[in-house]
């Protein structure tokens, strides 16, 4: 309440302050004008100037007094606002139950909306913190018929071609996100980094805080050992020392010269990047098409549209197909095309439906809350009618009374909104466990000025509506009507009762829609959890390393490293099995690569496919407990010098060798574009030794008919990006230190990251689904509670109102049971109509929920039945209290009232 008081005083004070100086100056002018006019008249009457002035002042009756009197009038007016607020606060304090109920309801509802507004505002509306970010586009090469239908990657050759053949872009840039190892106070640390063309920073239109960005010639080999630091890295590594520019930083063991530091808020594409280095391209890379391992950004020229950009890039692609006829057929069979999208859209596309859904839920809750408050206000305005009528009869202006009523509800609603901001702040912190930081700019979601303005404005709008309603209803009526009406209140007010009942029906309907929505999301989530991922994630601990190319240039070195680490891991007590892979399920490292079965005959129109290419060590599948379907798993036979072998999953096996056993068959990577089926002496082939169950790799709920995956032994195809997995006997997390130590005992300079149980990877991949489900459950629980309160309120009022009638019924012999049933029936009608209307609303959920549901239809009968039952039983319990009270009315007491 204190806060409300202070807020009201503040508003009045600021208004007065803002205008005070102007009012005073104008008042001086007005008085001077009057005196001057009078002096002129006096002079014309023949007085001397001095005499004229004296007489004028005398006539005016004291300049100072007049000035003071006018100021007092103004002050009283300002004061009256303050007084209104004070009166409002006094009224609200007197009706503590009403005030607290309304404030709590609005605070919770507005708090929820504040949180969702902050998230939507940051993530969807302002996902990029660079100037004119809507002009920046990203492109992605897609080969849908080969299983590559997502992602935003481009070949370096595309970049070179586009620089030459397009004219819609002001700036184009190529980048590659990766990780570099940096010495942090002697400890090797893996930091997210990005190699970029010098045009990247010009495209961003962000200048460095310190130093410079890259010069155009710093992509030349030999000059590329330059680095631009993020603000964060500059602070943590150099204590924000301006002298850092020009110094050296060891990156992956090589010295790089620091040339600049970017501003704190700078982030483009990958928000966590702390280090930028120049991107160097070899001549071979510059001329190889369809090798899509880079990211490409461009800024549209003013006046150019994204459609023009798409057209020009399509033209470049067509020209390339003509330039390389040997690829044309294969590439077009794969459905090759390039998508051009605004960068903002590409960042938020995946989360947009989830966020809209959550915000929709929050708005529903707010709506239900407002209906509840409206209900309370109507109930209260009935009791206040007498007070208003009396004031009207005593001569208070109608506008004055309306102003008082609106001030009262404004103070209440805006005060609640302020409390809602606090509730929201706490809620936002609690949401931290929902992995908001995985959203674009998710890490800096906070309540800023726009959230505060949004929330207070929403409170003010609600306040004006809630205040204006009874004011309009009560004020135009003549006082006598109001006073008379109050006296005969037993028969009047049926209109208000009907209105209140309709509000409760609407509440029940909205609550039902929310409940069904939450139920569907919950049921989908359970179904997703029940999906067999193809492996067992319990009791598995993972740890990742990225071997720096500088020290592990030769592939065998990486293989030897992995072998040595695995030996040490297996020697640890409590470790049952240990393996390694480059593609841990639900991790971020995924490679698709073209492969064909021996004897492949291209059928007309059939595309070649690009299945997942995964490297796994011996014992990896045993560690993950992947089911072996045929043949064998990798073991110690599959060394570097042994013949190349591969394992395929059942999806790929069914595609390449339908109906026959793949064991002993050979896979090859085509190297003659003119004849794909030809195996030359230089073609490497791999003999299939085993078939395993398909593993879910990107998400559990991946419903896309993936192309499957094939696996190579780590010893034969070593990779520098490795994740070790160990199956533990006890709780996986207890082995974190031992595993980390084992890896670092092989290479002490190597940063080890993502040391976490496998379950954590699964949980992370489900984060946004879980967040949507949990939030919708919270929202629907609040909605259910509010609806129950609404029903209770209406019935309790009805019972109090019909006390005498019920007393008569009981007196003439109605049993308590009959009275109980009568009131319950009244509630049942409200619930039934509400659920019926809600069912119509549920059909509208179809579109909103489609993308979020998994294996559950919007019309899922189980969910509908459970939610109807839940709503009905909670609502019935809310009815039971007033019904029971009605049945216990003592006729003697009721009739003697």
């Amino acid at each position, binding site marked *: 309440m204190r806060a409300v008081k202070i807020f009201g005083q503040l508003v009045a004070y600021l208004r007065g302050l803002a205008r005070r100086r102007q009012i005073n100056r104008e008042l001086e002018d*007005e008085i001077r*004008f*009057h005196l001057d006019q009078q002096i002129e008249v006096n002079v014309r009457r023949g007085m001397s100037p001095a005499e004229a002035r004296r007489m004028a002042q005398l006539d*005016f*009756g*004291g300049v100072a007094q007049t000035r003071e*009197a006018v100021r007092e*009038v103004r002050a009283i007016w300002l004061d009256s606002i303050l007084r209104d607020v004070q009166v409002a606060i006094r009224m609200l304090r007197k009706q503590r139950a009403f005030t607290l109920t309304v404030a709590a309801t609005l605070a919770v509802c507005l708090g929820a909306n504040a949180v969702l507004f902050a998230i939507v505002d940051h993530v969807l509306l302002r996902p990029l913190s660079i100037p004119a970010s809507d002009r920046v586009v990203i492109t992605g090469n897609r080969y849908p018929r080969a299983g590559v239908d997502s992602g935003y990657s481009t070949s370096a050759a595309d970049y070179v071609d586009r620089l030459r053949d397009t004219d819609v872009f002001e700036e184009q840039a190529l980048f590659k996100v990766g990780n570099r190892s940096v010495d942090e106070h002697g400890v090797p640390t893996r930091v997210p980094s990005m190699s970029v063309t010098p045009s990247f920073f010009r495209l961003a239109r962000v200048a460095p805080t310190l130093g410079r960005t890259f010069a155009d010639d710093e992509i030349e080999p030999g000059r590329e050992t330059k680095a631009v630091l993020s603000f964060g890295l500059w602070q943590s590594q150099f204590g924000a020392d301006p002298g850092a520019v020009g110094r050296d930083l060891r990156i992956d063991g090589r010295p790089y010269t620091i040339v600049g530091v970017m501003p704190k808020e700078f982030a483009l594409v990958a928000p966590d990047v702390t280090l930028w280095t120049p991107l160097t391209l070899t001549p071979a890379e510059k001329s190889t098409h369809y090798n899509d391992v880079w990211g490409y950004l461009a800024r549209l020229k003013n006046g150019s549209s994204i459609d023009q950009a798409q057209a020009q890039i399509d033209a470049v692609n067509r020209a390339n197909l003509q330039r390389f006829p040997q690829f044309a057929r294969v590439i077009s069979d794969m459905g090759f095309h390039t998508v051009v999208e605004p960068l903002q859209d590409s960042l938020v596309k995946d989360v947009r439906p989830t966020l809209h859904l959550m915000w929709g839920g929050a708005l529903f809750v707010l709506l239900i809350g407002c209906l509840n408050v409206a209900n309370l206000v109507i109930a209260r305005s009935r009791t206040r009618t007498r007070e208003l009528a009396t004031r009207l009869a005593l001569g208070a202006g109608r506008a004055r009374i309306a102003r008082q009523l609106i001030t009262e509800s404004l103070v209440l609603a805006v005060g609640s909104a302020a409390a809602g901001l606090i509730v929201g702040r706490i809620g936002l912190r609690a949401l931290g466990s929902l992995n908001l930081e995985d959203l674009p700019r998710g890490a800096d979601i906070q309540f800023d000025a726009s959230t505060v303005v949004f929330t207070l404005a929403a409170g003010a709008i609600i306040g004006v509506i809630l205040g204006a309603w009874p004011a309009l209803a009560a004020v135009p009526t003549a006082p006598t009507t109001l006073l008379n009406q109050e006296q005969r209140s037993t028969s009047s007010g049926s209109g208000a009762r009907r209105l209140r009942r309709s509000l409760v029906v609407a509440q029940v309907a909205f609550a039902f829609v929310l409940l069904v929505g939450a139920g569907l999301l919950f049921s989908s989530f359970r179904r997703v959890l029940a999906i067999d991922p193809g492996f067992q994630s319990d009791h598995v601990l993972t740890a990742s390393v990225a071997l720096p190319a500088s020290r592990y240039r030769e592939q065998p070195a990486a293989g030897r490293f992995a072998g040595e680490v695995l030996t040490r891991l297996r020697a640890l007590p409590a470790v049952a099995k240990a393996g390694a892979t480059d593609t841990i399920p639900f991790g971020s490292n995924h490679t698709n690569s073209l492969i064909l079965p021996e004897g492949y005959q291209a059928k007309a129109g059939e595309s070649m496919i690009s299945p997942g290419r995964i490297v796994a060590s011996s014992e990896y599948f045993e560690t993950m407990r992947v089911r072996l379907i045929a043949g064998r798993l990798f073991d110690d036979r599959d060394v570097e010098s042994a013949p190349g072998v591969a394992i395929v999953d059942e999806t790929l096996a069914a595609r390449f060798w339908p109906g026959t056993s793949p064991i002993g068959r050979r896979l090859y990577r085509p190297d003659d574009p003119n004849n794909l089926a030809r195996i030359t002496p230089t073609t490497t082939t791999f003999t299939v030794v085993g078939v395993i169950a398909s593993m879910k790799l990107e998400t559990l709920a991946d419903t896309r008919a993936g192309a499957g995956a094939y696996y190579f032994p780590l010893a034969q195809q070593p990779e520098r990006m490795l994740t070790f997995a160990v199956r533990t006997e006890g709780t996986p997390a207890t082995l974190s230190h031992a595993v980390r130590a084992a890896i670092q005992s092989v290479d002490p300079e190597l940063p080890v990251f993502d040391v976490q149980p496998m379950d954590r990877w699964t949980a992370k991949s489900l984060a946004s689904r879980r967040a949507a489900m949990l939030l919708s459950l919270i929202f629907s629980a609040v909605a259910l509670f509010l609806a129950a309160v609404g029903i209770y309120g209406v019935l309790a009022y009805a019972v109090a109102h019909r006390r005498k009638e019920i007393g008569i019924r009981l007196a003439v012999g109605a049993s308590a049971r009959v009275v109980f049933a009568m009131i319950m029936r009244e509630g049942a009608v409200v619930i039934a109509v509400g659920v019926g209307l809600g069912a119509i609303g549920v059909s509208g959920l179809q579109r909103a929920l489609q993308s979020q549901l998994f294996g559950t239809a919007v019309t899922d009968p189980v969910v509908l039945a459970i939610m109807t039952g839940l709503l009905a039983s909670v609502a019935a319990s809310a009815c039971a209290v007033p019904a029971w009270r009605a049945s216990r009315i003592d006729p003697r007491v009721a009739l003697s009232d």
Partner: protein
Amino acid sequence: MAKTDLLQGTLDLLILKILTLGPNHGWGISIRIRQISEEGLNASQGSLYPALHRLELRGDVESEMTPSENNRRARVYRLTRAGRRRLETENATWEQFVLSVGRILRAE
């Protein structure tokens, strides 16, 4: 609020009446008051300006600072629709009052 003391109420009424003739500034209004009441009713300037400001805050008149000649700025008041309505009702009340007072005096 409507029940203000008689003198002030009369002054308000006079101001509104004068403004029906057209927008005017405070000095002009004071001259008019003197003319209308033939110098008999000497409304003090000290109460004229507070009355004007009060009427403005109540919404019966509105005002505007106009740059006038010789760098003199005058505040010009103008009757609002609310003011016109008030004038009508107050006029009726005034007549009622005069009538009742007359009746009481005659009844003596």
